[in-house]
């Protein structure tokens, strides 16, 4: 392999890594090396084995075969604490925080500063503040982390790792919950880390990021390395082809909407996070909702759908005022909702694909009191085929599916309801490009069938390309409306920051 300019000696070298789970071969003979001051991007579809690989490097999983060398010495990590002590810092894909303790304690989890036998609280709080400052964050270190927003939690997750002296920094989709400003701050930090000679492994499904910060790209597919590319010279198309094994011609298959009248109207919706939000979304359009974190856009879907408590406001569907006290009322009124967190809100992980797909169906069609396996299998197979869900069968437990495929199960659960109004909250978070394109195709389809799609998102590209109209939120209120056609990122951001 051609040595990269500016990169030093190899810090971490993994050779011949193999790992199997019951019934699954997650990694086969994978080699990976990272040098001082270098960013290696790890790319691949959902379920390709990226997270598994880095969990092996950080002592979370034990490996079946292969070797790991750190600075030329053979190492074996049985526990995360050992990897951490050896200088490997990792930010996992899932947020890992303890909601009941303070921000500072989360940051220093595992090695709280001591003075003698006793915790040095002063040093801990001061240190926490300094570390957060490094990535441009200002949060009260004494606050219980449970009160932070998702983005703040993600940033704290990053702070947690850089609190230690790391030789290798591994980041698994660190930006999936961050907005552009926060992402910029992170990249600035990565730049500093590089110059300090830290070796970095970076995982993301956002290809733009890869081009911005990576030096090299290693692509995984089905647990094998299918390509090693130089980030400076590789093209987007080449990356996608190596990842998914085919060309992806149309990433955003949006056909212009032909709206036919109001599907849902929300008047003066008010609760803890929303203050008098009113809007109307039409049949046959994708109604994009954008906001910076904390602007209330994340709370909008849950409020309409009856998940959270609404203090006042009215919801009108198809010209009739409806009362939605809980999700069942919403379902019965033709509203379906894809929540932001599929694992905690969308899926019963220890149950099968089939049961998950039909969960809302039976709730909505409450006259069906008996289950019918054949009937269900038909529906399940239909969606597995239509959405090309990668699963051994409908009887597989969803916990063993990859993130993207889990997301498709949530989608099919809602699609089977044939809703008039479909609300999606961050529908493509953590989803690979291939699956993303498929989800966009589904949304476009719905829209063409005259359904109303409300897409709540923090991802600017999908907002601008998939929406017909855009509502931007700011501080729990509406910042403004835009026609998506011709709108630019700057227009959207102007409303988002309340300008």
């Amino acid at each position, binding site marked *: 392999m051609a040595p990269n300019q500016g990169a030093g000696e190899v810090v971490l070298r993994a050779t011949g890594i193999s790992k199997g789970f*019951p*019934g699954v071969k997650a990694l086969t003979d994978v080699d990976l090396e990272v040098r001082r001051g270098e960013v290696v991007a790890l790319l691949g579809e959902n379920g390709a084995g990226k997270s598994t690989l880095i969990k092996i490097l950080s002592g979370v999983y034990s490996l079946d075969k292969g070797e790991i060398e750190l600075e030329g010495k053979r190492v074996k990590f049985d526990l995360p604490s050992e990897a951490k002590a050896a200088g490997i810092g990792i930010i996992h894909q899932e947020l890992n925080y303890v909601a009941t303790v303070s921000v500072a304690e989360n940051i220093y989890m595992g090695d709280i500063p001591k003075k003698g036998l006793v915790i040095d609280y002063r040093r801990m709080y001061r240190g926490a503040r300094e570390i957060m400052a490094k990535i441009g964050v200002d949060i009260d270190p004494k606050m219980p982390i449970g009160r932070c927003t998702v983005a703040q939690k993600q940033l704290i997750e990053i702070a947690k790792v850089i609190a230690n002296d790391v030789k290798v920094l591994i980041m698994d989709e660190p930006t999936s919950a961050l907005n552009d400003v926060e992402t910029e701050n992170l990249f600035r930090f990565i730049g500093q880390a590089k110059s300090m000679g830290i070796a970095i492994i970076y995982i993301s499904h956002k290809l733009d990021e890869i081009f911005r910060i990576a030096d090299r790209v290693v692509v995984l597919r089905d647990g094998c390395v299918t390509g090693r590319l130089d980030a400076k010279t590789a093209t987007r198309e080449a990356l996608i082809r190596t990842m998914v094994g085919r060309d992806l011609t149309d990433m955003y298959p949006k056909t212009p909407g032909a709206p036919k009248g109001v599907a849902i109207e929300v008047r003066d919706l008010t609760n803890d996070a929303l203050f008098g939000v009113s809007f109307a979304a039409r049949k046959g359009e994708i109604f994009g909702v954008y906001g910076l974190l904390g602007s209330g856009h994340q709370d909008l879907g849950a409020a309409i759908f009856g998940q959270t408590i609404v203090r006042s406001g009215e919801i009108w569907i198809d010209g009739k005022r409806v009362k939605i006290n809980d*999700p069942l009322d919403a379902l019965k009124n033709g509203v379906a909702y894809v929540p932001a967190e599929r694992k905690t809100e969308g899926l019963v992980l220890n149950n099968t694909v089939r049961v998950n797909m039909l969960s809302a169906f039976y709730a909505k069609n409450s006259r069906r009191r008996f*289950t019918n396996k054949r009937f269900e299998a038909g529906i399940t197979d239909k969606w597995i085929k239509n959405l090309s869900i990668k699963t*051994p*069968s409908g009887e597989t437990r969803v916990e063993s599916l990859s993130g993207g495929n889990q997301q498709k199960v949530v989608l099919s659960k809602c699609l089977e309801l044939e809703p008039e109004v479909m609300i999606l909250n961050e529908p493509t978070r953590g989803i690979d490009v291939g699956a993303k394109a498929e989800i966009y195709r589904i949304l476009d389809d719905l829209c063409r069938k005259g359904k109303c799609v409300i897409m709540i998102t923090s991802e600017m590209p999908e907002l601008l390309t998939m929406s017909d109209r855009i509502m931007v939120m700011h501080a729990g209120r509406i910042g403004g409306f835009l026609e998506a056609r011709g709108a630019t990122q700057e227009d959207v951001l102007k409303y988002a920051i309340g300008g």
Partner: protein
Amino acid sequence: MAQNSNTPARSRLRRALTTGDASSLITVSTALVVLLTFFSLASPYFFKPTVFLNIGMYAAIVGTLACSMTFINVSGNIDISGGSQIAVVGMIAAVLIRSGDVPWWVGMIGGILTGSMCGMLNGFFITVFKLNAFITTIASMQMLRGIAYLISNGQTLVISDQHFKFIGRGYLGPIPFTLVVLIVFYIIFYFVSRYTVFGRTIYMIGGNPQASFLSGIKVQRTKFILYVINGTMAGFAGVMLASQSGAGLPMAAPNANMQALSAVILGGAGLSGGRGTIGGTFIGVMVLCTLNTGMTMLSISSFWQDVIVGLVLLISVSIDAIKSGGLKRKI
């Protein structure tokens, strides 16, 4: 997919056998077979139809409670007040029947409804205030036991009604009536768990209440219903026990709840919710009751009985845990 070296069917079978409900079912069934074989060899009196019918007759109390308790556990909850509920039920039934003002069956129904009401009490606190189920039922366990004593000021109330006797002590041909009732209950609960939307719902809210709520399931209402069902089943168990012992006993069923819970756990419904089967619980009940009868027949000292019951529980959950990779798991 690349990962499958075996044929899909074989690997699916293997997976089914090594993980989840099927695995527990195999463990507990094996335990039952081992015990039956052992006792048959060890005691000349054990391997006889009358003995088995007898085991079934007395299994009815714990078995009835364990049946609905399976649902409670599958839904991710717990009830440890079952024994106290049984005691209150027996006392109320005895008071009604002894009053002489009402026919025996009114006493029976009164007892069963008392059970339902105890269940409502638990369900109310758990679903309205959203209290933890364990905490709620610790409290109601104490309160209901106190009430059982208060009803008669600590006296036992002998029931001499001849009809009422039949419930716990009667036979249909050679089969004890309680065993028939028990089997009917298990068939109904099995059917509900496998073929109804309600049964499905229990597994879902046990697996992920939040996701179930967002799927339009009335989580709190379902939980409330489950506690009422569990109380009603405690009602049936209490009536059977009162009939079996011919009296309302305020100290009745001191260990019934732990035994039922042990049976449920043996049967594979742990405490984390979303897992477990009615069939597993049935076999779990049989394991415990066979153990009791077999050890009694062998005159094993009751100290050893405690130790052995604890060991059986511990070993079988350990086997389950090892089969599903517990040893290798780091957390």
